[in-house]
């Protein structure tokens, strides 16, 4: 009899009572200061502790957060935000317009890594305690989108702890401690080891999660991470190595959540180089300057084969600089150049390279998912049409200096649009490099097209959506015809969780604890 009684008691316990939650990622957020580093691991984590005026919902739509509403001022000279009342910081102090003003000065300061978000901003004015006006030097339809990750700090707390500016060099109080308005407080921070979060009861929004304690422990070695998930030591790992997805799917006590990330993987060319740097055949001209050669590269690569084997069917082809599902994606131009080796050889012959040529192909080996294997596959495919590439895969910290010094004939690049809008990659990758106007800072190949440069400012200030989309389609068509970049695929986003965990996955790879439920 006793055994039954015991079983009965268990059954009637609430389905999802309070629970502890542990998860791991490959890199540990470098700092707790939301303005010090503009990277996914840091902002993704701090999104649970600090909050911005606006935030993205489960489908990436912008929704109110610390601001209840906003409307454009006049003909687009700026935006007026009305702030939420009665919001408290973790240390109990109130949130109001002074904190917004302070957070603007801090986030746009020279020491902050997020200052580029405020390039279009001319000034911020406090109308009253709960209304703020942000003036832009030109009409900027996507401004509200671009400040989703701009997080509010309490001016009092920052001044008291001498953290009024982010300090990258020696670090300050804000590097290790937090005081946000978000759903969770950081109760323990051991950099590189573990960071523990506990719910903030005074949160203005109602918590749908049932977590009492959450712990993030970084695990570098992918095999160890999978082992940790399988053995139940952690409840969630991000990312799951591609090759393990099939196996984990068959495992009953583990769930695999698949989606696509915003990052587009592409091959870049030395457009403005005079000659090749690593070619065995000493040539006096740069074959990649000829559009036919670039198109031949596009036809020579069998992307579906790469997705089938190396990506195990987990990625999606892409034909332009942003993936489907991003704002401004040109649905009409979704066709990639077909895999056609004869067409590729014909194009090469047409361009005068019937027996092909050798060149240096630079790649990373620890930055993007299976980057080294993809580069090896690309090398193999190009060799079949006579494009003899010498692959040089290296860790990412050596990679950027090599690209900046133009030490390549072709290179691999991954780009994830910060504002989840098609304008972002054009500004950084397609615009003619221009130091003052902060344009084309990642356009290593120096691709330049007058029409694209002419259209970019118009896109940035076009309020009317259909007109803006038309211009974006025109730019995408130009880039495709010119084969400025050979875009390959959009990276998959694969998360692994224990069977008893429900959570929400977003293309920006931000992990929000507030959408997690653990049923015992």
């Amino acid at each position, binding site marked *: 009899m006793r055994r039954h009684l015991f079983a009965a008691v268990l059954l009637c316990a609430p389905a999802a009572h309070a629970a502890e939650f542990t998860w791991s990622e490959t890199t540990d957020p*470098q*700092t707790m200061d939301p303005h*010090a*580093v*503009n*990277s996914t691991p840091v902002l993704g984590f701090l999104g649970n502790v600090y909050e911005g005026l606006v935030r993205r919902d489960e489908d990436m739509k912008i929704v109110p957060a610390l601001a209840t509403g906003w409307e454009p001022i006049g003909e687009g000279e700026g935006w007026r935000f009305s702030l939420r009342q009665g919001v408290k910081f973790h240390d109990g102090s109130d949130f109001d317009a002074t904190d917004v003003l302070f957070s603007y000065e801090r986030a746009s300061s*020279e020491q902050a*890594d*997020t200052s*580029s*978000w405020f390039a279009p901003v001319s000034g911020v004015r406090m109308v009253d305690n709960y209304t703020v006006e942000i003036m832009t030097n030109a009409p900027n339809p996507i401004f509200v989108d671009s400040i989703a990750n701009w997080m509010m700090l309490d001016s009092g707390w920052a001044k008291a702890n001498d953290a009024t500016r982010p*300090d*990258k*060099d*020696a*670090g300050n109080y804000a*590097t*290790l401690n937090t005081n946000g308005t978000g759903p969770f407080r950081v109760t323990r921070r*051991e*950099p*590189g*080891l573990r960071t523990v979060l506990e719910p903030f009861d005074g949160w203005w929004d109602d918590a749908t999660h049932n977590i009492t304690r959450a712990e993030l*422990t*970084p*695990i*570098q*070695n992918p*095999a*160890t*991470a999978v*082992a*940790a998930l*399988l*053995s*139940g*030591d952690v409840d969630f790992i991000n990312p799951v190595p591609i090759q393990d997805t099939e196996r984990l799917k068959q495992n009953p006590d583990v769930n695999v959540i698949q989606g696509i990330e915003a990052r587009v993987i592409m091959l870049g060319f030395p457009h403005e180089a005079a000659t090749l740097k690593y070619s065995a055949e000493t040539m006096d001209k740069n074959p990649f300057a000829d559009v036919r050669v670039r198109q031949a590269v596009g036809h020579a690569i069998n992307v579906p084969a790469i997705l089938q084997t190396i990506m195990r069917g987990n990625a999606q082809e892409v034909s332009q600089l942003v993936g489907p599902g991003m704002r401004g994606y040109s649905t009409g131009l979704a066709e990639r150049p077909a895999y056609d080796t004869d067409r590729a050889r014909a194009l090469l012959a047409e361009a005068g390279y019937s027996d092909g040529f050798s060149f240096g192909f630079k790649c990373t080996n*620890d930055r993007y998912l299976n980057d080294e294997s993809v580069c090896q596959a690309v090398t193999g495919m190009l060799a079949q049409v006579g494009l003899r590439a010498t692959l040089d895969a290296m*860790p*990412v*910290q*050596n990679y*950027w*200096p090599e690209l900046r010094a133009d030490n390549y004939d072709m290179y691999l690049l991954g780009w994830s649009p*910060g504002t989840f809008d098609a304008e972002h990659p054009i500004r*950084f990758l397609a615009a003619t490099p221009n*130091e003052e106007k*902060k344009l084309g*800072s*990642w356009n290593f190949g120096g691709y330049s097209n007058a029409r694209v440069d002419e259209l970019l400012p118009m896109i940035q200030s076009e309020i009317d959506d259909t007109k803006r989309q038309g211009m974006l389609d025109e730019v995408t068509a130009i880039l495709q015809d010119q084969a400025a970049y050979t875009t390959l695929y959009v990276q998959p986003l694969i998360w692994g969780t224990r069977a008893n965990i429900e959570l929400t996955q977003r293309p920006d790879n931000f992990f929000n604890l507030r959408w997690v439920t653990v049923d015992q």
Partner: protein
Amino acid sequence: MLAFVIQRVAQSVLVLLVVGLVAFSMFRFVGDPIDNMLGQERTQADIDRLRTTLGLDQPFVVQYVKFLGGAVQGNFGVSYRQGRPVSDILMERAPATLELAAVSGFLAISIGIGLGVFTAIRRDGWAANTIMSLSLIGVSLPTFLIGILLIYLFSVELGWLPSFGRGDTVRIGGWTTGFLTESGLKALILPSITLGLYQMTLIMRLVRSEMLEVLRQDYIRFARARGLRDRAVNFRHALKNTLVPVITVTGLQLGSIIAFAIITETVFQWPGVGLLFINAIQFVDIPVMAAYLMLISVMFVGINLIVDLLYFSIDPRLRADRTKAH
């Protein structure tokens, strides 16, 4: 004795300087730290500003002298990645490595000597031969593979032991220890086996060959001729004489345990200085890399000194003619 110690300490300082110079001169080629410190939307101006504030644009010699100046006062500068003083980070992470090294070192020595003596005494027994061949597996497989296979077997399949990390630790003053918590101890098992296995095999083989050598000496035959029990002959007479040469090599072995910890910590995500060093290399966090090398060379030189002193205390013959510098 004192003269000897002073001389060795002077030599050690020289070694440290050379280590610093060699390490520092190589760091310039390992990559550019600035890239990792700034996000995607940085501009060239940001890069230059940060380069000057970090003093990376100054000539190499100036950087090196500045580094040494700081190091002498125990200030190893600030980690580029964590934005915190390196000495604090090292103090936080050192206990994890030291405890792991201590446990695996102890394992390696106790089992190494135990099996070494056993295989020497029972030289032709089948048990000794199987142990010898099995132990070879310890040196025939790369450490990371042994680690992963152990995780696969004991954590994933059997679920007995944690697959990574150090478990809960208890903070005592500046030191965090894993010995006092059950999860801490369980977390120690697999990594210390992985780290210790390699050293244990080497120590076992060394003890075996030294012991065989000693067992052939006259004083052992004389001890047997006096009717002493095997236990007395093997342990009081033979083992003591075996340990003298074993100590020097074991001392060096333990030094290399700390260096080998790099791999074990990477596989088990063990929060020690080894893992910190690997992160530093990936992030080109030069201050941390330089401080790590200094810490390791201090440990090495320290161990060498202790080994020499131990040598003196065990072998009375050396104590007699004290002047004989090692």
